């Protein structure tokens, strides 16, 4: 089984557009949306949910106001500034990281742990196959753990179906959800754009995949917006011995397809042709 993750470092370079296009091209696969923070792939793939589960992870502190004598020991012990004393101790749940130190230190046992219900994940069907997707609740912090759960579930689905591929829409950045989504993948496809920010961020995400020894290849989206910086990206790819799989032209049909809630692969357009060519090369890259 081959696992492809689409990443970018910088947000808004076109990850989800390309995943939706590959979804239409790739046979025999299961998909996952690992951008659990601001997931968008469902807007294009219109998943029909088969099953939904709550995501429970870690704990939050909870104060029994009758038992609290407002001594302030918890306030001093909390390193996350999650406690204030207003008549009794009060927990700022958005700041609480669930370390439990306040529970331990409270002399009147007024603080206890409550299970943290912080998101939902789903197994759904789309016209391009099955997908596992999730939504972390607003302001929560366990995105890496939810991503790991999504990945575990998508692998289960893929094994059950004896699928040939897993296709993953990755989160932006290089932090915890990205690290969680990279783990155990076969190949990362970096989507970049010909801007100074795009190139800068590409270098950082490439550094991250190198850190975890995951091979990567690159495609440049809207390459004709700035041919000079596209050229710099090509040079950088050559220097890094990174496989540049293709360049996608700026194509107004891309936004139109998004607005229509469709994969760009369903249109006859320059961007769609370029992504088909990238898919051909990806198959070769998997063989290497």
């Amino acid at each position, binding site marked *: 089984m081959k696992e492809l993750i689409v990443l970018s470092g*910088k947000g808004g370079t076109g990850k989800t557009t390309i995943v939706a296009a590959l979804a239409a091209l790739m046979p025999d696969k299961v998909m996952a949306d690992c951008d659990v923070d601001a997931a968008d792939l469902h807007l294009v793939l219109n998943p029909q949910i088969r099953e939904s589960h709550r995501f429970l992870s870690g704990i939050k502190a909870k104060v029994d106001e009758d038992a609290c004598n407002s001594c302030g020991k918890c306030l001093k012990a909390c390193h996350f500034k999650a406690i204030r004393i207003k008549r009794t101790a009060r927990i700022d749940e958005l700041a609480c990281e669930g370390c*439990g130190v306040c529970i331990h230190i409270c002399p009147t046992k007024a603080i206890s742990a409550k299970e943290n219900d912080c998101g939902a994940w789903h197994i759904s069907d789309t016209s391009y196959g099955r997908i596992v997707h999730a939504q972390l609740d*607003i302001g929560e912090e366990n995105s890496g753990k939810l991503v790991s759960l999504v990945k575990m579930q998508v692998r289960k689905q893929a094994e059950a179906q004896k699928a040939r591929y897993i296709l993953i829409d990755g989160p*932006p950045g290089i932090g915890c959800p990205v690290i969680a989504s990279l783990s155990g993948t076969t190949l990362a496809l970096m989507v970049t754009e010909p801007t100074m920010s795009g190139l800068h961020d590409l270098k950082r995400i490439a550094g991250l995949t190198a*850190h975890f020894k995951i091979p990567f290849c690159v495609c440049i989206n809207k390459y004709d917006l700035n041919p000079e910086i596209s050229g710099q990206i090509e040079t950088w790819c050559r220097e890094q011995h990174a496989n540049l799989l293709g360049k996608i032209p700026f194509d107004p049909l891309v936004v139109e397809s998004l607005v229509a809630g469709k994969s760009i692969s369903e249109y006859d357009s320059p961007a769609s042709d370029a992504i088909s060519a990238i898919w051909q090369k990806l198959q070769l890259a998997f063989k290497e």
Partner: protein
Amino acid sequence: MQIAIASGKGGTGKTTVAISLALVADKPVRLMDCDVEEPNCHLFLRPDHMESQTMYVTVPEIDLAKCDFCGKCRDICAFKAISVFGKNIMTFPELCHSCMGCFLVCPNEAIKEGKREIGVISQGSINEIETLSGTLRVGEAMSPPLIKKLRDMTSDAMLTIIDAPPGTSCPVIAATKGADFTILVTESTPFGLNDLKLAAKLMEKLGQKFGIVINKAGIGDGSVEKWCAETGYPLLLSIPFDRKLAEAYSNGIPIIKAAPELIPAFKRLLEEVTQ
């Protein structure tokens, strides 16, 4: 006064708005790049006199001469960063949240302060814009500690403009919490609207004042404009889609340098959000 620039979706133009506001503001002004996973402000301002400082968080280091392997540190650690088996003890510094629980419970003072490098904070200046930016170490999973260290450097003496990371989870909270006003930058597409709704919910949960700026107005389906009208959330500014602006951005040129006709609009935006 602190103004944060955030968005649910990435790549909508947070940095573009932050740079434009810093350029039109009365000087001195401070620009804080809190998008520490992918900081980009320096590409547009090219500050000089950059000074960098490596930042660390505290993690446990075991003094084996004092440790009696009682396991109390392991038991209190909610993040599985310490494991004890027989007469062996191991720490996993990359999992540690620096809650200091293990220091608190160790009966033998066997835990010493070790450190984990989380990234770098760079300070610079250009034309009376003081720049502060965080760069997360590649391979470091947790960005909030570095963002919090940056935010602790907010000065009351001058206006601080904060470029926040994308999303709606803990890094965004670390960057925007306590700001006097947050500008949510979006584009008027189904993705932009979906993620804007999430970001607006986060702002309501935090109890923060916020308003909306549409970037690349003219492409998409007008859904954000419609949603603002329905909900009553203030639509503060629409920046038109213009190839000239996209090209300037791509070359690391602030858009108001390429299109000075936008300067009055950004001045009005700044006035409105700092009132």
